[in-house]
C-alpha cells in the first residue's frame, strides 16, 4: 500500500510537467500579451518592458528558464503587480480553501442527508422534496442564486453582508473566534454549495435505491436488525462508492475557487485571481495557479482512491 501511495505521488511530477508545458506554449500562442495596450508606446519603452520580464527572449528559452526556476520551487512573479506568485497562492488560496471546505461540508451534509431520506422514503413527500431540491439546485446557475440571495437576504432583510469574506486571513487565526464574521460567510457558502449538494443528493439517492434493493439488505431486515443499523452499517456504506467518486472532483473544483462567487462577494480568492490573470495574460500567475490546481486535483484524486479502500474492503492496492 505504501508503495502504491508513493507511486501515485511520484506520478504527480510528470503530470505537472505536462500541464506546465501545454499551458506555457498555449499561453504564448494566444493573441495579446500581458502588456498589450491600445495606446502606442515608444519603441524604447516597449523594449524595456519586454526585457524586464524576459519576454524579448525566444519562447523556448523562456520555457527552459521557467522550468529551471520551477524545479527550485520558484513560481516567479505576477506580471501584473510584480508580487511573488507563491505569496498570492498562499494568501488567496487560503481564503478559497476556507470557502471550499465549508461549502463541501454543507454540500455533503445536505446532499447526503436529502439523498438518503429520499431513498428511504422513496416516492413519498420527502422524496419529492429531495428531487425538487436536486433539480432546482442543478438547474439554477449559482450566480443567479447568489444574486437572488443577495437581494432577499441582504438588501431586503439586512440579515447578511455582501462584501468580503468573514473567515480568518491567516492560518494562525483558525481557532480564534474573533477572526470570524458569520454575516460575511453565509451567502457565499450557500451560493457555492447548492449545486454540489444537489448533485450529491441525486447520486446518493440513486446509489441508495440500488443498494436497498439488494438481497443482503432484505436479509438484514429479516434478521430483525434495527433500521438505523441497516441504513448506516449496511446500506450507506455500500452506497458510498459512487458518492465518493463525485465528491473528489467536487472538492477539487471548490478548492480551485469559484470566480463568479468570489467576484460577486468581493472575496480575494484564488479563483478570481486566476480568471483575472487569464484575462490580463499574466503569464506568471497563470502558470503558478494552473500548477496549483493540477496539484489539488491530483491529490484529491489520490485521497478519493484511498478512501475507496476504506469504504470497500474488497478494494486493495498493491
Amino acid at each position: 500500500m505504501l508503495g502504491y501511495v508513493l507511486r501515485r505521488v511520484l506520478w504527480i511530477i510528470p503530470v505537472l510537467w505536462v500541464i506546465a508545458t501545454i499551458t506555457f506554449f498555449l499561453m504564448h500562442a494566444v493573441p495579446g500579451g500581458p502588456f498589450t495596450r491600445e495606446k502606442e508606446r515608444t519603441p524604447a519603452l516597449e523594449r524595456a518592458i519586454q526585457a524586464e520580464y524576459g519576454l524579448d527572449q525566444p519562447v523556448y528559452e523562456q520555457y527552459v528558464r521557467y522550468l529551471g526556476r520551477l524545479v527550485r520551487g520558484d513560481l516567479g512573479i505576477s506580471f501584473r503587480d510584480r508580487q511573488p506568485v507563491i505569496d498570492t497562492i498562499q494568501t488567496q488560496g487560503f481564503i478559497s480553501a476556507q470557502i471550499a471546505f465549508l461549502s463541501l461540508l454543507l454540500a455533503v451534509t445536505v446532499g447526503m442527508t436529502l439523498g438518503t431520506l429520499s431513498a428511504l422514503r422513496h416516492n413519498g413527500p420527502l422524496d419529492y422534496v429531495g428531487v425538487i431540491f436536486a433539480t432546482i439546485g442543478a438547474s439554477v446557475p449559482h450566480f443567479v442564486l447568489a444574486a437572488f440571495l443577495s437581494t432577499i437576504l441582504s438588501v431586503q432583510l439586512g440579515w447578511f453582508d455582501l462584501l468580503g469574506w468573514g473567515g480568518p486571513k491567516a492560518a494562525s487565526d483558525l481557532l480564534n473566534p474573533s477572526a470570524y464574521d458569520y454575516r460575511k460567510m453565509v451567502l457565499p457558502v450557500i451560493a457555492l454549495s447548492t449545486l454540489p449538494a444537489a448533485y450529491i443528493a441525486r447520486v446518493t439517492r440513486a446509489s441508495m435505491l440500488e443498494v436497498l434493493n439488494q438481497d443482503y439488505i432484505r436479509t438484514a431486515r429479516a434478521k430483525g436488525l434495527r433500521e438505523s443499523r441497516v441504513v448506516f452499517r449496511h446500506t450507506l456504506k455500500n452506497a458510498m462508492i459512487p458518492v465518493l467518486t463525485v465528491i473528489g472532483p467536487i472538492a477539487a473544483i471548490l478548492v480551485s475557487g469559484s470566480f463568479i462567487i468570489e467576484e460577486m462577494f468581493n472575496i480575494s480568492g484564488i479563483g478570481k485571481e486566476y480568471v483575472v490573470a487569464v484575462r490580463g495574460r499574466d503569464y506568471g500567475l497563470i502558470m503558478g495557479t494552473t500548477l496549483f490546481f493540477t496539484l489539488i486535483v491530483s491529490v484529491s484524486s489520490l485521497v478519493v482512491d484511498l478512501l475507496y479502500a476504506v469504504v470497500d474492503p474488497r478494494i486493495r492496492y498493491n
Partner: protein
Amino acid sequence: MNIRSKWFLLPMSFMTAGLVFAAACGGDDDEDKTPTGGTTPGATSAATEPSGGDDRAPADQQKITIQLGEPQFLDPHRSSFEQDIGVERMLFRGLYNLTDDGAGGVNVEPMMAEGEPQVRAITSTGSRLAAPSAQEPAVYTVTLKSGLMWSDGEPLTAQHFVDGAKRGCDPTVAADYGYLWGPGYLDMVGCADLQANEDESQKQTLMDALGVRAVDDTTIEYTLSQPNDRFTMIMALWVTFPARLDVIEANGDAWTQPGNIVSNGPYMLSAYTAGESLVLVPNPNWTAGETPALQEITIRFIDDLSQAFRAYQSGELQITRINASDIAVASADSDLADEVLINPSGRITTLQVQMENEVLSDPNVRLALSRAIDRDELNEVVFDGTNTPAAYWVVKGLAGYQGNEAFDSIIGFDEVAAKAALAEAGYADGAGFPELSIVVHTPDFIRTAEYLQEQFKSILGIDITIDQVDSPTRSARFREETFELFIGGWQIDYPDIENVLFGLFETDGGNNHYNCSNTDVDAALQAALSATDDDARVAAYEDMETAVVTNLCGVIPMWQDSLPFMVSSRLGGVVANGTIDAGHPGNYCAECWYVKAE
C-alpha cells in the same frame, strides 16, 4: 486484509492532503501590513477634526466605503489605468492640481507649487528675464510652498520632483505616460535622447543631462525644448509626481505596500488586501490643502457593478459606479433617486474604420455607415439614454469643443442620405457589398454591434458579423491593424484639445492604427504645432477636428460616455467633473469629502 491496514489508509490519505494544504495554503500574520507607529516615523495616529462646516458628522463617523476596480500599481510613474490614477491622486499630488471651474471646465491651481511658474528664455539671465520665443528652449522655474512634508515626516524638497521627472522619463521604469515628458508634449531637454537610448552604458550620462534640476530645496528648474502653455496642466498629472528614491531603492517593488509607501497627498495607505480592498487614512503631514475630514476611506475592488449596486442598497457602499440598466431601478426608488449621479466623462466612443480596407477607403461608404447610425436611438436602446449622442470628436468640457451642431447635418443620421451615399459608392441597396466584421469585447459593445448590425442591414442592406474577443486580443488586433470595423475611442489624459487629436489622426501618427491620412488633417496639425499663441493653437485643432469628422477619417463618432454613479446623500463635498475625474466623481479633491451629520 486486516483492519490495521485499513485504518492506516485513513490517516495516510488525510495526511497526504494535509501536507499539500500546509505547503500551499495559510498566509502569514503580516500579510495585511497595517502600519503601526513604529513603521511610519513622524506620522501620528491622532484623528483630525473636520475643518469648518457645521453639517459634518463627528470624527468617529467620518468613514466611508467606496467601489473601484483593483489598481495594477500604486506607483504613479508606472500607472496607466484609471483606477490606479484615482487612488494615486489621493496618495500623491503634483506641483499643480486640476479642479472644477464651476462652469463645466477645468482650472489649474497650484498644489505643491507656491504659484505660477516663472518662464524665461534659456539664454536669459540676470535681473531682467526675457520671455522665450515660440521655438527656442525655455526654462520654467517653480517654487514650492514652504513646510511641505511626506507622510513619514521627511521634508518634501525640489529634489524629489527632480527624481520624479527623471523617473517619468526613464524608459526602464516602463512609464506608459512617460511620453508626456518627451517630444510633442513637455519635451523636456534630453528626454527624447534618453527614451531613444539603447546603450545601457550611456544611460546615466543621459539621465544627468536631463533638463531638470533642483536649484535649492524649494526651487525646481525645468528646461523644455520650447515653451509649452500646457506646462502647469501636465504638471498636475501622475507621471510628474515627486518620487522618494530612498524608499523605492530600499524596498524594490514592495515600496508601494503599507508600511513602506510614503505619500505627499492628503491620504496615506493604511492597509491593502490583494483582490479585496485597500484602506486610506489621513496624512497627518499634509499641509498643501484642505485637511481631510474623512478619517478612513475603504476602497473595495468590485468589478460586478450589479452586486456593487446591491451592496450600495444594503448600505455597505457610499459611492459606487453602477450599470446603466440600474439607473431606472434607482430612480424609481424614492430613497435612491436623488443619489444617482450621471457624470459625463472625457471619453468619446466611435466606430473605427480601417482606412486601408478597399471598401472602407471610399469616403461614400464611410458616409453611408455614419448616416445609417441613429445615435439617439442607439443611446436609448443600449444605454437607456445615459450617454450623449455624438457626431463630434472633441469631448465637451474642453476648449475648442464644437459639438453636434457643427457636424450633425454632415454626418448625422439620415436614412435617405445614407442610401444615396452607398449608391454613389456603387453598392445601391447593398448589392455587391462584402461582409464586414466588427471587433468588440464588452457586453455594452456587443449590444452596440448588434444594434449596428440590424441598422446597417435594414437601411443599407449590408451584412456585418460580430467578432467578439477578449481585451488583450482586441488591443493586439488594434495595434496590428487586423480589423475592418472596431468599436473604440479615446479617453483624455489631460483636459486639452491637443490630447484628443495629436498622435491620433496625422499620417503615421503613433496611435493612428486606422490609417487616417488626409492632407487637411496634417496641415491643421502643423498649424497647431507651430502656433504662437493659444487661441491660434486651439483654432488650428478645431480645424483638425473638422477635417477628421467631415471626412470620417478613421472614425465615425457615436457617443460621448457618461458614467452613472450612486453617491450617498450623506456624503458632502463631492464635486464631479467628468473631464478630470478618475475612478470616482470628484476625487481630484477627495480631501473635500465628508460625512454629513444625520
